[in-house]
Every structure is written in C-alpha cells, then in structure tokens.
C-alpha cells in the first residue's frame, strides 16, 4: 500500500517533469525565434546584385526584427557592393566598400589582371585594399602608373590560375588595356606609417 508521503513524492516528481518539459518548450521556441543568426533577422538582397553596384533601399530588405530594419539597411545603402550577392543572400557590412570610396567607384569598371608574385604582393593583398598598378611594356623603359585602384576580389580564373579584379575609372579603360597587354605588371600598396596616419 502506498503511503500518502510516498504518493506525494511521485506527484512532486511528475510536477518536476512537467516543469522541465515546459521549460524545454520555451527554450526551444527562444532558440528558433530569437537566434541572432536567424535568417529572419538579417539584411538580404531583394534581387541578384552584381559586384560594384551602388546599393539603394530598393535592393535590400530586412528579414525579421522590423524595429532594427531602418538602421541596419541605412548602414549599407549608398555604398558600393564589393562582391556579387544572389537574391535572398545576406549582405553584411564587410561586403560593402567604405562610404569614402563612393566617389572613386561612382564611375568605375571592373578589370581582371593575372595573379603573380608581383601583383599579389606575395600573398598580402586583400579585397578592399587601395593599390597602384605600374605597367612596363616588354623591352620598354617607360613605366605607366594607374593610381588609387580598389581590389575587388582575388579569385580563381580557371583551374590553374588566379585573377585579381580591380576597379578602375571608366575614363582610363582604353589606356589600361593598351598598357597591360603584353606588359610586365607590378602592383604596389602604399605603406601608411604612424605619423602620416595621425596627420
């Protein structure tokens, strides 16, 4: 015969189980709806966005957390997209160029040059870097320099070679094509020293 005290212990255990299951339900709901990586709380592309596009409000939408949408989208608009993003793909701060480069990219076109030891700065080149490109025609002594170019990407052009994509002003397109064809290419990045930075 079960004593009332023992019955009470079983009852308490059953209540504890009920509480734990309910708590589990709440935690699961929290994990599924409030996860910061939740796809419904991120800025995504409304359509396929090519690299170098100047982002507008019409290009982006917020999934979830509508109270954050204005500030999150404003942070990204009016800036150039550094990489191509497909419809529904996430757009983050790291994927857009700094607002200061808006002028530079306003009338820019993307060009690719082959990657080599002299164009990759021995592997120290990164997307978003500002560089100068020096071209020297074969056998020539006169170098031509293209200044303030932005590195858009470093990606494989095919199975055996990588390519560096640069943004150059549209007005320099033809000069650039002539200079790089058959010429030797050297990429340089300006080294910013501490006292220059503070000026």
């Amino acid at each position, binding site marked *: *015969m*079960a*004593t009332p005290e*023992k019955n009470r*212990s*079983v009852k308490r*255990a*059953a209540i*504890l*189980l009920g509480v*734990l*299951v309910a*708590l*589990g339900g709440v*935690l*699961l709901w*929290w*994990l*599924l709806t*409030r*996860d*910061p*990586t*939740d*796809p419904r709380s*991120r800025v*995504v592309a409304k359509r396929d966005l090519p690299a170098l596009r100047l982002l507008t409000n019409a290009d982006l939408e917020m*999934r979830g957390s509508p109270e954050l949408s204005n500030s999150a989208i404003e942070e990204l608009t009016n800036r150039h997209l*550094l*990489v191509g*993003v*497909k419809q*529904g*793909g*996430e757009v*983050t*701060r*790291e*994927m857009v160029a700094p607002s200061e480069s808006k002028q530079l990219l306003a009338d820019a076109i993307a060009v690719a040059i082959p990657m080599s030891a002299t164009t*990759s700065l021995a*592997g120290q080149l*990164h*997307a*978003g870097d500002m560089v100068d490109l020096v071209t020297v025609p074969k056998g020539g002594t006169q170098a031509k320099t293209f200044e303030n170019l932005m590195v*858009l*990407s*470093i*990606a*494989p052009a*095919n*199975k*055996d070679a*990588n390519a560096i*994509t640069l943004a150059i002003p549209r007005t320099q397109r033809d000069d650039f094509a002539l200079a790089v064809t058959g010429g030797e290419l050297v990429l340089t990045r300006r080294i910013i020293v501490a006292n220059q930075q503070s000026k």
Partner: protein
Amino acid sequence: MSIEETPPSKWRRITYLLPLIVPGLVFVTFFVFYSQFLFCSPNDPCTPLTAAEILSGTSNLDQTRVATYVARASWALISGVHLLACLAAIVTAGLVIYQALPEPEPEYPKNLKWLLILIVVAAAADISLLVAIWVSTDVSSPAQTLLRTTVGQMVPSINRYNRLADALSLTGTLSLAVAACATLWQRDAAEENETELVKRVNLLRPVLYVSAATLAIAVLKLSATLGWAASYLSPDSEIGKSVVILVRGIVASMGTFYTLLVAGVYVPAALLLRARIRKLAKSQKPDDPDGWLASHGLTLSFPQYLPRVIALLGPLLAGPLAELLSKAALAFTG
C-alpha cells in the same frame, strides 16, 4: 591486528556524481578560455578571413559547383547519421539508468524509474538548449563567418540546424554522463556483491562506446559542415588553401574537446568501479585478491584495454580519418 571498520561517510555519494562533475569542469574550462581568447564580436572582429575576402574568393567553375553539390550531399548524409546517433545515445542512457538503479520499494509505483529517466532526459535537454542559446550569440567567429558567407547565402537556416543538432548531441552526452553516475550509485555500500559489481562494470561499457561514437560522429558532422562551406572556394586558390587550414584547426580542436568529455564521463566511473572490485576481492580472498579477480574474469588485459583506449580517442581521430577517407575517395575516382 584488527582493522576497525569505520562507517562510510555521507560525502562518498558525491563521488557518484564524478562522471557528471568532471566533464562539467572540462566544459566550463573550455568556454572560459574560448570567451577570453577566441570570442569575436562585430565590434571586436578577430576572424582571420573576413566575409568579403571569403565571398570574393568563391568560385563558379564547374569543378567547384560539382564539389559543392557533393559536399552538400555528404553533409545531408552525415546529419542523418548524427541524428540517429544522438537518439541512440539518449535511449542507451535510459536503458543503462533503468538497469543500474535498484528496484523501487514496493510502496512506490513500478514506473517510478521511467519517471526519473524522463526527468534526466528533460533536464539534459533544457541545459543543452540553454547552452545553444548562449552559443548562438557567437555570430562573428571564423567558422560562423565562413558558413554565413558560403552555405548561408544558399541555405540561410544552416546555423539553426547546427544549433539544434549540437543541442541534441549535448543532450545525449549529458544523459550518458548521468547513466555513468547511475552505474556507481548504491543505496548501501555493504550490500554490494560480485554479481552486482559485474553488472555495473558491464553497464558502463555501452556508456563509453555510445558516447565515443556519438561524439566522433559529431566531429564528422562538423567536418562535413565546414567542408561544405570550404567547397565554395577553389582548393587551388590562396583563400581556398587558407580556409582548409582553418577548417582543419577547428575540427582538430573540437575533436580534442570531445575526447576530453568522453574521458571525463568514463574514466572516473571506471576507476571507482575498479576500486570497488579490488575491495571486494580483498574481502573475499584476503591472501590472494589477484587470484580471486582472475578466477572471476575481472582482470583487464591489454587486448581488453585497447578497444577502450581507441574509443576514448575516437572523437580526436574522427577528423583526420574523415580527411583521409575523402582523399582516398578522390584518389579512387580520379
């Protein structure tokens, strides 16, 4: 000379909880060090490869697209296996607890033990979900950045799947840790006999093998997930090579962490049961306890140790094994 028997201390029952306390300490230590030295946030970015760098290195070559499809298929397959392994771990833990605990007194209902098992699993699930919620704030780590900029662009809910899978994995491990505690539990130390002890030793074995297998599969799943992300980048590109190094490092460190968790669950329980067996042998045959152990098949030889050592190292070996298998598959298929 007679040895005066001292009554067992009430505190000895704390030792029954060692299979839960030791992995708990491993877990806390890992997270303290991770938070202090490895935690990245949007305001304190510490990932070696930024989202723009990874995304700019994604390749659209035919070979890469095929590799991405194969990696996605591998992830789907291993995720299914992982789900089954976690469920098997929870069921095994329930059965071990049921077998290890003494029958309730006649006044209690017979299903009291099942009620207790359900409480254990529910508490383990709650703790795992709490950990998953806490971990989900870590959105800027190198692994998260890699996943969000590659797989996340096509499958936005990938992180949610991973958090749920990790929570299930931890629920299984915690339930098995409680099962290891149950194999040590005794109402009265004086009641223990040879049959009871052998039963407890045998019950600890599935705890070791199932927890090691579950965590080894968790490492394989992690490797498949990050491998899927890495497949978006050409392995010949500079960024592709860097990502492979990053993935290898993450998989190796998680493998080590999981190995320590398995060891934390199994080793304290195994040592305590071993001590009890020796004590019983001494009481049964004080002049030749080793002979008594050998006659009852309770000695452990090297061939008996070896599978246990391999099981303990399983999660650590799973990462390199997965890499070796994928290389072998590539060599066979050309």
